[in-house]
Structures are given as C-alpha cells and as structure tokens.
C-alpha cells in the first residue's frame, strides 16, 4: 500500500500540520517506509493468535460518583489566549 500525495495532504490537513515542500516529500517517504514495514508483518500467519487489544495486563480502576468543586477555574481561564464574559473565545466557526 502506497500513500498517494492526495491522501498524504488529507492526513496532514486532519492533524493540522502545515508543511513546506521539503517536509512533505520527506514525511511522505517516511510514512510509506513505515507502511512497507507493517506490510511485512502481514505475511505472518496470525489465524490462530488471539488479538491483543491492550498492551499491558492492567485492569481498570474506578472513581465513585462524587462531585467536588476544584477552584482552579481562574487559572484555567487565564491560560486561554482569549476569554470573555465567562466564555472561551475562538475564531468564528461556521455551522
């Protein structure tokens, strides 16, 4: 499987990367090499192998349903580049 230039640009777009020409060429090449590597693994017969869904053997821990009021809001609000009347302000999003 080869990643076409079109698909490459689409992926870059989705992950919000803006690349210059040289970066594009280099990354596209790297990505294709990676896929070639994975392609090799496809040659292994895994029909009788149980899929590994998760890398380690941990099991989940839970928290109880109790609400507490952390007063870190001001800090959070101050982190934002633009904050107005209680709202975070972002460039206008069209529906």
């Amino acid at each position, binding site marked *: 499987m080869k990643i076409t230039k079109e698909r490459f640009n*689409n992926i870059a777009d*989705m992950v*919000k990367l803006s690349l210059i020409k040289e970066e594009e060429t280099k990354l596209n090449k790297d990505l294709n090499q990676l896929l070639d590597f994975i392609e090799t693994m496809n040659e292994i017969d895994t029909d009788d192998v149980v899929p590994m*869904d*998760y*890398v*380690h053997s*941990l*099991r*989940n*821990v*839970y*928290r*109880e*349903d*109790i*609400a*507490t*009021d*952390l007063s*870190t*809001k001001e800090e*959070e*609000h101050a982190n934002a580049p*633009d904050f*107005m*009347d*209680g*709202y*975070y*302000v*972002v*460039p*206008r*999003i069209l*529906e």
Partner: protein
Amino acid sequence: MKRYETVIGLEVHVELSTDSKIFCDCSTRFGEKPNANTCPICMGMPGALPILNKKVVDYAISTGLALNCTIVKNCMFDRKNYFYPDLPKAYQISQLYFPIARQGRVTFNTRDGNKSIGIHELHIEEDAGKLLHDSDKKVTLVDYNRSGVPLIEIVSEPDMRSADEVVAYLDKLSSMLSYMGVSDCKMQEGSMRVDINISVRELGDTRLGSRTEIKNMNSFKAIRRAIEGESKRQIDILIDGGQILDETRRWDDDKNKSIRMRSKEEAQDYRYFPEQDIAPIEIPNEWIHKLHRLLPEFRDEKIIRFQKDYGISEYDARVLTSSKEIADLFEDTSKLYNLPREVSNLLMVEGMRILKDNYLDPEDLRLTPESLSKLIGMIDRGEINRTKAKAVFEEMCLKGVDPEDYMKRYGLEIINDDKKLRLVALKVLEDNPQSVSDYKKGKTKAFGNLVGQTMKAMNGKADPSLVNTILKELI
C-alpha cells in the same frame, strides 16, 4: 403507482443522571454559569488523566439489561479523533470496537399490536462542550460545562417504519431510562438527542436503500415532521427517477425541510484507536447479576398490575404510571389507606393540573404517601369536603404541609377569632354606654363608632362584617 415504505433506525444519545462527570469529579449540574464546572481533565490539559466514574458503568449495564442486550464482559474505550473547538482534547473518548452491550430488543404496544425493535449496540461516551455563535463580533464562544458529561448512545436496528413507531420507541426508551433513574430524558434540556437514519424502498423490497442521516433532533414534534418530510423528499426523488445520496442532513423545523450538511465522501475520518489512558473494563457476572436484581418494574408491567391489584381502569393506570414518582406515590398511599380510587382521582385530576399550572415535574411535588393517606382518610370520614380537600391537596403538593396540622390550625384560628372578637366587643360595649344608648334611640352613627372602637381594639385585624354581626347580637 408504486408504493414505498420508510425504513428508520435511530441513534439515541442520553445524558446520564450522575452527580459528577464521566472522567473527573466536576459537577454535571445543568444551568450553571459558563465554564464553572470544569477542571484540567475535562478541559483536556496535557497530562491530565481520566478516571472512569463507576456509576456510568452501572447505568450502562442496567440499561443494557433492560434492553435485553448481551453485556460485553471485556469492553474498552477508543479515541474518536476530530478537530472542533467543542472538544478540548481534539478527540472524544467513546467505544467503537467493544461497546458495553450488544444485540438487544425492546418491545412496545402500538395500535397495530406489539412491535419489537432490535438494539444493535449500546456504548458509553463523553459529551462535548457547547458553542455559541456571536454574529456581531465574528467569534465563537465556548462553554465547557457539558464537556465530559457521561452519555450512552443506544443504536437501534433499522426496524422502524413510521414516525408513530419512532415516537412510540422513544417514549418506551425514555420511560425505561427514567424509571431506572439513569437519565431524566429531558429533550428540551438536551439530555436526550436523536440522530435519525432514514431510507425508503419499494414495498416488498428487502434490500435497504441509500440512507440519509438527520442529526441532533431534540423534540418529538420536530422528529415527527422530519421523518415525514425527509421520507417524502426521498420518495419524490425516486418517483422522478433520481438517486438518493448517502449524506448527512440537518432538519430545519421552521422551513419544514431537511438541508444537506455533508456527503459520505466528505464524512469525517475519525481515525479511531484504543484509548490507552483507560485500561480494559472487566465486568464479572456478579456485577451483572446484582444490577439485574435491582431493575425496577417498568411502566408496561405496572399498567397491567395496577388494574388487577387496585381495580382502576387502564386509562387511569396509564396516567398514573406516566412517571415513576406518581406511580410510587399512588401505590404507597393506597397501601397506607386502602381507597385507591380516591387516591387515583386526586393524583390524576388535581395532581396533573397542579403540575401543568406550575410547570413542575413529578419529582418536584412535596407530597408524601404519609400526608396523602391522611388526607384520603379525612375525605373518607367526611371530615373535610371535596372543595376544601382540593385546596389542602394543592398546599400539600406545593408547600409540603401536613393536612391534619393545616386543618387544625386553619379551623382553630376561626373559632379563636370568634371568641376573642366577642370578648373584645363586650368590653367596647361596657366602655361606651353612651353610644349604646344612642344607638338604641336610633342614632345609626353611634353604631359606627362602636364598630370603629372594636376594630381599633382588634388592631384592625378583624373582619368588619363579622364585627357588625357580633355587635348587633350583643346589644
């Protein structure tokens, strides 16, 4: 002419009634100031780690069991990636590969008999924030209070054929969810939101046609109109020999038509992958059995049992079971004072009127089975007439008064006043012998003076007509 049928499947998003969010201990309270219920976790700050709220899993399992699903005993979370400002992490934690429950079924009555709808799956996910579009300032405002509120998404099979069936299915779902206390299912507050997958095909055809998805519906009326409108739009296209496009549409209820949002080709590429910050969920049998035992009796079973146990009509049983609160109030009161028809009558006629007049939900009523059973006893023994009983009932519903206390106080006040008034009036007569004799001689003005003196002695708090009567009696 060819005949067509509409094929509908639903994705129902339900906000769970937990106190805290799904992965952090922020409150889920509705109607707070913007960005008041947030923390580094639900704001997606780098390094903040999610910890799953156990109640969310409880609620999801209970719902899965109520919908006759198979519980997936080893389920997992996945990341659904998309870039939008309502999602601070730029991914939503959801379940794609191993949803918590699968392959269920829900059955309800319709005019044409029982209808059964398959449940494809049920999964857990987190809600996103809310965007407000400020047209003046050309910016978008974001409120993250809803970010991280737990949701379950219930995905049905394409088993519905009409708007009536869709509404009946949603009614059944929301009744079950509220009976379990899993969600309040308030569509107007957005705690139940519906995506409709809809296609049409020639009657008798077993293949599914191309479908459109109508996103984010939040009222029964709009859902009904959207299904009717979209189904007609698709049938018109087919009749004209056209082709239905696989696309996402938005229903504009004011214009009464659906509007194209994006085609399947433009559909988002979510690049799902397993969420590594949350370890796999293991659900042992004991957990499932425990929740199974805790499932409540649902509305349809209650309707049948109430008719049998309390001898009330099917209509009455339907009204009384419209909410679990009213149904429990009816049953618990009838156990304390065995006069179910009277209880049912008060709750159905007066209770429903009070809810409507005061824009209240059943859980807002301050009535208890104890207080209501006292009132029923008082009515039964003829200690209170029906008009007064209705007034007392309203006070009980709104202010939580005890009917005996209330009547005692109310009744005693009148007797006391009367006695007190007589004593005061006697004293006034004794102190004003001149006015009394003047009045007896026919001077009506003198009587006015006596009334005035009595009212003054009562600090103006007596009923003047009662003062008149008492004075005339005494003279």
